């Protein structure tokens, strides 16, 4: 078929003689729009995403989420720059070297040989390696932070334990020491390491508090662990593993209360107060009260569970949440 062609030097190529089918003209501007749409979507999505996440990382509602959002935002920025550049180069090639703009293809440039490809690949590998190191560091921090926080900053006494049991289709959360069990809402003290043990009685679930960067599967016959430290606020808890009919309604509210308010609340409802929480409230209420207000000028990001009298409580431990 193609040997029926004779070589012509003008720009208009002859149609294939034996078929009568010709390649029509392209409209590069139309395809600039079409191919540009997903690229624009990428740039907008990653641009806004990086901004939002880095912004959130500056004022995180919890230690863990701050670390994760910092990593996420930085990654998105890297992806925006390099991925976006790659996409724009592709778009440029598709439009710039369109058949209506180019009369003949240039021969494959010899100088763009193996070395260029090698160097580019090594460059990408370096970027990926840096990303890996950063991600690994963050992973180590999010994994190990409870120990660090508990020993160095909060003192061992400031850890409270919570058991989460998922069953179709509700969570039953028991806060150790407080000894109360709730389903719709669960209350924990702020700026305390909450160590969570999670399991399930029937099928797989996953206990997720997105705003705090917490998600761990609840698997029958197994106990999984996670932790968080949160500032006062109201947080959404979801089930993040398909568990049947009521999956999308297997939600609860996590209310993080300032410690003194938490103690008040527990006592007024007749629950016991974990010694760790009670002690830290007692210890700080006398000693560091004056410094409390000034050492933390950051307002809590979410106000659902806060009461007016507790503004000093987050600062009473001398740390803010973006450690």
């Amino acid at each position, binding site marked *: *078929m*193609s040997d029926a062609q004779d*070589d012509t030097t003008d720009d208009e190529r002859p149609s294939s003689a034996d078929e009568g089918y010709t390649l029509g003209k392209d409209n590069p501007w139309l395809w600039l729009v079409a191919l540009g749409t997903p690229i624009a979507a990428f740039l907008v*999505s990653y641009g806004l*995403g990086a901004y939002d996440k880095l912004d959130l990382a500056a004022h995180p509602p919890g230690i863990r989420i701050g670390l994760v959002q910092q990593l996420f935002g930085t*990654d998105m920025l890297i992806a925006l720059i390099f991925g976006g550049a790659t996409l724009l180069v*592709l778009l440029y090639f598709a439009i710039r070297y369109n058949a209506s703009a180019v*009369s003949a293809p240039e021969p*494959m440039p010899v100088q763009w040989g193996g070395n260029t490809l090698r160097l580019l690949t090594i460059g990408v590998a370096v970027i990926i390696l840096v990303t890996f190191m950063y991600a690994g560091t963050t992973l180590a921090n999010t994994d190990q932070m409870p120990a660090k926080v508990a020993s160095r900053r909060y003192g061992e006494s400031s850890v409270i334990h919570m058991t989460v049991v998922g069953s179709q289709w509700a969570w039953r959360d028991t806060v150790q020491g407080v000894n109360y069990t709730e389903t719709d809402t669960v209350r924990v003290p702020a700026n305390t390491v909450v160590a969570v043990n999670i399991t399930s009685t029937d099928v797989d679930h996953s206990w997720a508090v997105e705003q705090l960067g917490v998600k761990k599967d609840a698997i029958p016959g197994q106990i999984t662990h996670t932790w968080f430290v949160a500032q006062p606020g109201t947080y959404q808890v979801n089930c993040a593993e*398909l568990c049947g009919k009521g999956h999308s309604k297997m939600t609860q509210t996590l209310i993080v209360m300032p410690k003194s308010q938490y103690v008040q609340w527990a006592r007024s409802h007749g629950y016991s107060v974990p010694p760790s929480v009670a002690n830290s409230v007692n210890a700080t209420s006398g000693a560091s009260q004056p410094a409390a207000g000034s050492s933390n000028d950051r307002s809590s990001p979410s106000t659902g569970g806060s009461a007016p009298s507790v503004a000093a409580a987050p600062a009473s431990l001398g740390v803010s949440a973006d450690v």
Partner: protein
Amino acid sequence: MSAETATFEHGGGESSPSGWRRWLSTTNHKDVAKIYLWLTIFWFIVGGANAMLFRTELLTPKDGPFFNLLGYNSLVTLHGLTMIFLVAVPAGGVMANYLLPMYLGLDEMAFPRMNALSGWLLFWGGVMLWWPVVGNLLGLSPLPFNGGWFAYPPLATQMPSVSVDTYVFAMLILGLSTTAAGINFMTTLFNERDPSLGMFDLPLGAWGLGVFTPVLGLYELPWLMVGVALDYFDHTIGMGFYTAQNGGAPLLWQWLFWLFGHPEVYFVAMPFLAIAGEIIPRFSERPVYGYRAIIYAVTGITLMSGMVWAHHMYVTGLGQIRYLYMFFSLAIPIMFFVYIVANFAMMWRGRIHLKTPMLFAIGMLIMLIYSGMDGIMMGQPAIDVLIHSTWFIVGHFHFTLFGVAIMGFFAALYYYYPLITGRMYNERWAKVHAFLTITTAGIVFTLMDELGSQAVPMMRRYATYTYAPALQNMQMWTTAFAYVLGIAQVIMAANLLWSLYYGERVDNPWSELTIGQGMPSPEWDGLPYKVPTPRNFPYVQGDSGAGKGTPAAAAAGGKTDTVTDGGTDAPTSDRDAATPATGDGAAATAGGGGSAGPTPGHGGPDSEVTPDE
């Protein structure tokens, strides 16, 4: 040429009414490919309509008004299973069945009957998967399987529905179909090809369809088959592999499933990543750049894809092994980068024809890059905690599965449709399809990403989102664009069906493109098959029996001369390479120019060593 035309006459989809026996009894690879093709398109439309149903449901945050909670779960499960096992997998089968023998210069597969078996198992697997839906619509059975496409036990094993069994058997049947097909493709490539053809003489498409795809399929499918078999014994006779109360481990399924599930993604993308290596150079009027680099990179991707499965399980409590899986997961984009740059090099300073196949191929590259960027995020356990099981994942794998596998399938389909049917599709409507698909797919999947990365994100498989009603606005936009995306696919199906009967008859609508490439297109040669000449691809060096009369072969012959002379002179132009229109005599003439296409076409790392080998 006349023989070729005759083939098209008989090979067209338009069989005479009395010809139904032919379709039931056929073992011809082209006919089997057509069975695959129309099954794929049928299920694609059905699975897409299914998606439109639950997209409609998501217009409001509350339960209803169209489907109840379990109905929604059934729909998303069916959508996933249909699109993966009845669309994305057989889409590769369409191309492999039709093209692999042609790429290799054969007239048939290694095992024609097994090939027919694959086709019919595919048919019955689809019936098995969807029979509970029919039963449910007729009021005979409860809702179809609603345990999610990954069917995590104990939920999947405790489901009181016959469709748990049909799920298992559908997976087994479809797994057998794909396994048989994989054995067939692999044997065809390794054992049946012309002995004079070395592995590095094969087109990229042949590598993809006959090596990478079957290797992945034969590696991954046993895990799924074993997994569903244990599932079956678990829920029928209580052997309790996955049931904690009976001493089993629910996580066992996840290990088995993701051993299958991650390579599966590469399995469905691989045929089209490879075929893009045929389409992109053709529509750029350039030879392949970095042939060996692409093959090495894709080989690496193939191997690595089997080593990263546990990144689907970061939140199950894996421990320190997560660092290893993160390392492997992040390494994959490096190899994809080589693939992408090689494709860029073909387009750069080429003469790009934005025809429908090329548009989808470029769209596929865009989606590949996009999903790769998303993938880097979720390969990191620290971030994965945030986005696991949210719609960010949904967006990501739609970029991968729709953006790469399905849009790659469209590229290949529009490219080879004239070859398969002997008729040209309606170019205008094909471009409408391309325009709507590329734009709306990008928007819809980006919105999914956005929904999944809000502070309170949209969780996966949530029939209601009353916990975050603020997402409704974005959901409505997603639904609106998804409708357009769905309509575009109906346009595609209608166009292909219409063109089957009324399309313009053509032999090779792309023959104009091959003039300057110094690169043959064996798949268009038709019957009688011409064995691809050894070493006739411009990216391979060495001795050549080329010069069989096609410009490409002549160019290849010329290239050989050049290489043995050590001549790496400045090439004139690709079109000069094609000047010899009359065979051997012209090969010498082509010598100087022939290096234009060939020499730079060497895989980057190989170009220096080429002349010595």
